[in-house]
């Protein structure tokens, strides 16, 4: 007897993508798992051609409503690399501050409103809020500070407009930033408490064996720029990305899947950053991770929710430090004169490594653009996680199986999570 189970993810309004999870079961055995994702960044690669070198930060910010800063930062890094300009000092600090805001708001949204309900047995944040009102309220309080950081530094809460190649259009004054410092100090305890709260959840058993890939810098938990390293000895400059990773078109999907050049799967995102950047966590985040029992050897994807909470605390601490030391840069931006060449930019989006590459002609027109988002890189790993889980849970009913699949997909907070919450499990029994 054969049994087909199809988990379909339909397209939604106001979302950046669509996707489907197809699970094939034959004679009681799992014979296939295919996660299909539609990826908007591919459109952007094409429409960036013929644009000026100054335009990618504003154009690529539109790829995602949740992590526009990541797109802006990788874009700026790549264009500046092509033009031989390094943005450092106070301007780089301001970029990190903006990025802290995005990490806080994105991770907190995911932890409190999306992933925690999975662990506590609720259908969603609304149902959870009915029983855990104060928890949800504190999560929103924490997230609000991230929103405020993005709004003040980025100039707008959604798709920030203050970022430009070379720096910013306008830099905030100390006076404008002062209320943010008070807010961050106030929510630091919430961030700490969040780690302890999620560390107490029950975690399904699952161990992944994906190669972990993240940025590394000698002096900080890397977010903008740095070397691309892995737990298996990879150590590359951003310009070497294309030699080490390949994107393959998968016939059943209009998305590209990324692999190591030897065909191996790899994983980017919080678990990878944590494993590779553990030594650079700020003291409060390090202590909270220790108390939660997290080590760099953590390989259970379900514990990613704890790592996200640790990263929120780290970002709060980092933002406090950056604000305490803030001095207005002399100029809001460095001049970036175009020249012919290719530039590479990397940064750590909340979901993982985000790579941009642009080729410019001598007038600064973009002749080629490549954007490799974290979700494309994680897709093969997510499928593998799902296959293992489904094999271990074939006896579950459809609802329970859908729940565990959703929870496992959310472990990686894919940028198609816009769609993966819509797992419409239909079973065709023959």
């Amino acid at each position, binding site marked *: 007897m054969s049994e087909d189970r199809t988990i379909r993810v339909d*397209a*939604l*309004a*106001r*979302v*950046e*993508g669509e996707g489907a999870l197809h699970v094939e079961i034959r004679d009681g055995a799992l014979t296939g798992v295919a996660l299909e994702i539609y990826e*908007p960044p591919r*459109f952007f690669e094409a429409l960036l051609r013929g644009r000026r070198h100054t335009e990618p930060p504003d154009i690529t910010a*539109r790829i*995602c*409503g*949740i992590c526009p800063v990541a797109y802006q930062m990788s874009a700026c890094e790549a264009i500046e690399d092509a033009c031989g300009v390094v943005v450092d000092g106070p301007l780089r600090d301001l970029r990190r501050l903006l990025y802290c805001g995005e990490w806080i*708001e*994105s991770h907190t*949204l*995911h932890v409190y*409103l*999306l992933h925690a*309900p999975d662990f506590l047995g609720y*259908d*969603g*944040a*609304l149902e959870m*809020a*009915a029983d855990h*009102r104060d928890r*949800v*309220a504190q999560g*929103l309080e924490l*997230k*609000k500070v991230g*929103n405020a950081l993005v709004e003040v530094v980025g100039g707008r*809460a*959604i798709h920030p407009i203050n970022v430009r190649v070379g720096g910013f259009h306008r830099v905030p004054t100390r006076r404008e930033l002062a209320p943010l410092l008070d807010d961050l100090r106030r929510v630091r305890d919430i961030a700490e408490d969040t780690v302890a709260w999620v560390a107490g959840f029950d975690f399904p058993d699952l161990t992944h064996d994906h190669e972990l890939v993240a940025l590394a810098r000698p002096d900080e938990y890397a977010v903008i720029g740095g070397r691309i390293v892995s737990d298996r000895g990879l150590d590359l400059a951003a310009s070497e990305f294309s030699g080490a990773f390949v994107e393959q078109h998968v016939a059943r999907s209009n998305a590209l899947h990324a692999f190591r050049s030897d065909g191996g799967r790899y994983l980017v995102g919080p678990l990878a950053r944590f494993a590779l950047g553990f030594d650079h966590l700020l003291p409060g985040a390090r202590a909270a991770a220790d108390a939660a029992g997290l080590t760099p050897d953590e390989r259970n994807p379900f514990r990613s929710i704890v790592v996200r909470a640790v990263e929120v605390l780290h970002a709060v601490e980092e933002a406090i430090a950056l604000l305490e030391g803030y001095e207005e840069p002399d100029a809001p931006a460095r001049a970036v004169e175009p020249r012919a060449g290719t530039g590479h930019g990397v940064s750590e989006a909340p979901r993982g490594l985000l790579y941009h590459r642009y080729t410019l002609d001598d007038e600064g027109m973009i002749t080629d653009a490549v954007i490799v988002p974290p979700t494309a890189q994680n897709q093969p790993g997510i499928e593998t996680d799902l296959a293992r889980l489904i094999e271990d849970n074939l006896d579950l009913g459809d609802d329970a199986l859908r729940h565990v699949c*959703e929870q496992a997909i*959310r472990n990686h*907070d894919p*940028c*198609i*999570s*816009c*769609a*993966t*919450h*819509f*797992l*419409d499990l239909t079973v065709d029994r023959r």
Partner: protein
Amino acid sequence: MVAVGNRFAGDDAAGPLVLDAVRDDLPAGVVARELDGEPARLLDAWDGLDAVVVVDAASSGEPVGTVHRLAVEPRGPSGIGPGPPGRRRSSHGAGVAEALGLGRLLGRLPGEVVVVGVEGARFSAGTTLSRAVAAALPGAAAVVRDEVGRLTGAPGRCA
């Protein structure tokens, strides 16, 4: 007034386009914001306000171009649920219904909440509206003007 939507996602632009149509008619003291529908931002946007009119694209199964008007009870049960099962639980897909539900549970809704919805059909990338949605925008704008006028007691400027 809060307009929710993405100007680059087909009929999802309805909310922002209604805002464009009424912006110059809004009485003094009315704050207008354009948001993407992420619930926490919506809760922050109407924090401390007396009343809010939310305008958004809708997908309820009614004929395309239908203009919905829905008064939301700020406390207790109301007709608004969290939306169809599964149409949430995502950093990219949650929306007004979830924000209203959370706001009610957390005591974070203004005293009066009116949602004006424009039934859409296509929400894919692009700036082209369905014909029926484009035709419905003036009517939706009129409903928003009426509501803002009623809530502010300034019908002369908004009628």
